[in-house]
């Protein structure tokens, strides 16, 4: 009995369990002492949750793009963060022009729709072109090669937009109808956050249903299962890959505008960090898996918002919000150690192994 156990469990497993256990204990201890210290009231916690949810739903939208591309091409599309940036950065000029001509104040809904349309169009075009120029010619190459072109495309796009639009401060104008609060069940919630969360959920539902229910969605799923077999079944693989990029680009563009409406400032580097986070979210959820990406995104947003106050404050760590990214990445590594294929990545794992 003992011998059997000894065979199966290696030293490395024990080390990992020890690391995991220590971190878990630390988190628990931190949470308990934070709550016992009573620094935060119930409304503070609710605020933390809502802020995290809003941020997380944007991550989730970007993450779907990563995960879909990973599904069909099995590659990390490093340039996706720049796809996310290009839309709202271009939309900024539309927004400012409309703000100057008072169109924004007089017909805010129309104006916002226009911004969305422009931003989604630009993001989609960029995503489509990146695939066509930087990835398609390398279809048969080893996997590190498209990774490098993706990094190259990412740098190129960042500095292209820096060169085109400049590197100074650009901030979206204030849109009156998006300012202020709503009271929902007696909880004070920012309007913009409600809109962001609802818009993200609606978009994700549309996306999910599109992938699961339509013919094109079915074809995309077929391509991500097995390219050769899909081609034999008469599916135009290249067209499906392009479609995937187009859908990912649209989602990223929409996420970009939501992001810009929430945080106002847009600049050429704005895609990098959310891109990295969204990618983390996609891996957290199990890359290649759309519901996983959504779950991972929201989970990551919540962790970033809640964890520093909950875990670290009680441990007496000063300025805990400096460490929020460290917590997010630690969480990622922990998830990968104990579930090497992410939260919802089971299906994929059994197949890929």
């Amino acid at each position, binding site marked *: 009995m003992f011998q059997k156990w000894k065979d199966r469990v290696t030293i490395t497993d024990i080390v*990992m369990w020890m690391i995991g256990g220590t971190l878990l204990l630390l988190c628990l201890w931190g949470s308990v002492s934070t709550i016992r210290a009573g620094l935060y009231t119930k409304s503070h916690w609710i605020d933390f949750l809502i802020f995290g949810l809003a941020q997380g739903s944007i991550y989730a939208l970007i993450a779907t793009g990563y995960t879909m591309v990973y599904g069909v091409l099995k590659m990390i599309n490093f340039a996706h963060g720049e796809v996310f940036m290009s839309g709202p950065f271009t939309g900024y*000029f539309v927004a400012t022009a409309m703000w100057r001509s008072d169109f924004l104040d007089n017909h805010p809904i129309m104006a916002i729709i226009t911004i969305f349309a422009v931003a989604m169009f630009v993001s989609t075009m960029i995503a489509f072109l990146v695939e066509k120029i930087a990835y398609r010619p390398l279809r048969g190459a080893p996997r590190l090669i498209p990774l490098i072109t993706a990094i190259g495309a990412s740098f190129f796009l960042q500095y292209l937009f820096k060169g085109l639009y400049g590197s100074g401060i650009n901030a979206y104008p204030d849109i009156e109808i998006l300012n202020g609060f709503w009271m929902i069940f007696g909880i004070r919630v920012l309007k913009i956050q409600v809109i962001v969360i609802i818009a993200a959920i609606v978009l994700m539902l549309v996306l999910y249903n599109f992938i699961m229910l339509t013919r094109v969605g079915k074809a995309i799923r077929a391509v991500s299962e097995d390219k050769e077999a899909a081609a034999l079944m008469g599916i135009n693989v290249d067209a499906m890959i392009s479609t995937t990029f187009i859908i990912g680009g649209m989602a990223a563009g929409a996420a970009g505008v939501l992001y810009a409406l929430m945080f106002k400032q847009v600049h050429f580097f704005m895609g990098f960090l959310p891109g990295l986070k969204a990618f983390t979210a996609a891996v957290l959820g199990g890359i290649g898996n759309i519901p996983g990406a959504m779950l991972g995104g929201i989970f990551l947003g919540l962790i970033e918002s809640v964890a520093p106050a909950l875990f670290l404050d009680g441990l007496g760590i000063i300025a805990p919000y400096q460490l929020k990214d460290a917590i997010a*990445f630690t969480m990622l590594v922990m998830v990968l150690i104990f579930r090497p294929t992410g939260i919802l990545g089971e299906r994929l794992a059994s197949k890929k192994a």
Partner: protein
Amino acid sequence: MTKAQSLWNQGVKIGAIGGVSVLIISLVGMVESFGKRDIIAGILPMGVAIALIISILAAYMAAKKTSIPEKSIQFANAVVSGFVISGFLAVFVMIGRSFNIREMFVGASPVLYNILTGGVAGAGGIFLLLLTGVLCGAFAGILHMLKDLPRKLMVNALLTIFILGLLQELILPILKAWDVGMINYLAGLFYTLNGLTPIGAILSVVIFCILYLLWNANQGAIKFKYASLPKEARKKSQVAALIVLAVILIVLPQFLGLFLSEVITIVGLYVLLGLGLNIVVGYAGLLDLGYVAFFAIGSYVVALLTSPQIFAFGLNFWQALPIAVICGILAGVMLGIPVLKMRGDYLAIATLGFGEIIRILVLSDFLRPWLGGAQGIGSIPNPNLFGFQMVKPQHIYYLLLAGIILVIFISLRLKKSKIGRAWMAMREDEDVAQAMGINLVATKLLAFATGAGFSALSGAIFASKIGSVYPHSFNVFISINVVCIVIIGGIGSLPGIVVGAAVLMGLPELLREFAEYRMFVYGVALVIVMLLRPEGLLPEARHKMEFHDETEAGAKTVA
């Protein structure tokens, strides 16, 4: 395909691509800001030269891609695409002059329009622009019709002028440093303070052509002679070449001056990093995107041990160096254990996460009392060799050279050892390797540890070179750059890493004008190199074979 179709497909479409390219480099401001520097003084500004090169290249491609093997149609396609390119620019200038697009495109300035239209106002300028485009196309068309030798001669001669003009700021100070009458005279003959003299340009073309023709005529003979030597003699000549190389490497900084030595030390640091990552990615096939963590650990260990700030251990560089490397190796093992079971992209993102965790922890206020936080650690003393302070980049160069030689030596020995073969086996297929009796845990950890040790060595030298360490210097871009160096150079190939580091890190430093567009050009270069030479610039023989065996490469991606 009919003539009209060919005209549309090859002439107009390729012209449009060229037009968009030229438009982009104009809009991001390259044409304008490079316009301040002349390639040939008073005649050809650098910005215009770049635009012309792209146009001619596009037109040439149009001619080359023409599907109808008829010279007249190829020529016509080239001219058409040249015209299309200039047409794009002409439309842009007209739009820019009548509407205010500068609000959006910061680079769309009147100065740019002036450069594009050759300084001629109104319709005349537009006409001049279109004419230039047609001439570019015609030139490319003629170029395409020429025989191989004259074409190569012409292209290379023009490139010589371009490169001599581009590197003026490097060549001129080196020449001047000699301060000999003859060389001063030559420098004056070739260069003004801004660009080549017209005489210099013509002279350099003539000299180049003579040299090129001589080389061309004798190249075959030299190669043949070398091949016909007996094995002994060939080996001797190789040793002689090595000695010449060593001598050159040793005396190099004396001739380079301060600036170039600085550039070389930057390249050297990246070569060290690349050599380390090569073990992990190139030999063992583990994609590590958090490689900067070990670089940071090496730097911080040296900083903490030698700097009088924070702890004031008061060690010197040579005492701290082995400790830094050992810490790096330990960290490599420690970070290696959790990621043992991960593969491929999961490994990449987990290691990336590690790199970021280390950086954020070092940056935090929480660990400030021990690691200095965002304020970093300063006053790191320079290495001291027998009482000699290594202050200048020229001195650090020798330190790096020693480090690189050591690391290359270790890499070569490792590669041929049992461990090296185990790494290769693991790279090709983990499961099969395990089945063959390779201990995956030990093999993987050894790869991580070796790579980490080299990286820490690089970090240690970096810290003492720059005199201070900051968490901001250790961001994820360092990791990404090193991965790019390894892959662009040719994965697994040691000379490839040196070339990759020189091209990706050295060249942009050399071209000071590029500073602002550095990352832009870097991105384009990554994409183009990978599209044209996916095996890298100087690939390892084994990898090269893989890339040229279509079926195997195809099978790999499916697996």
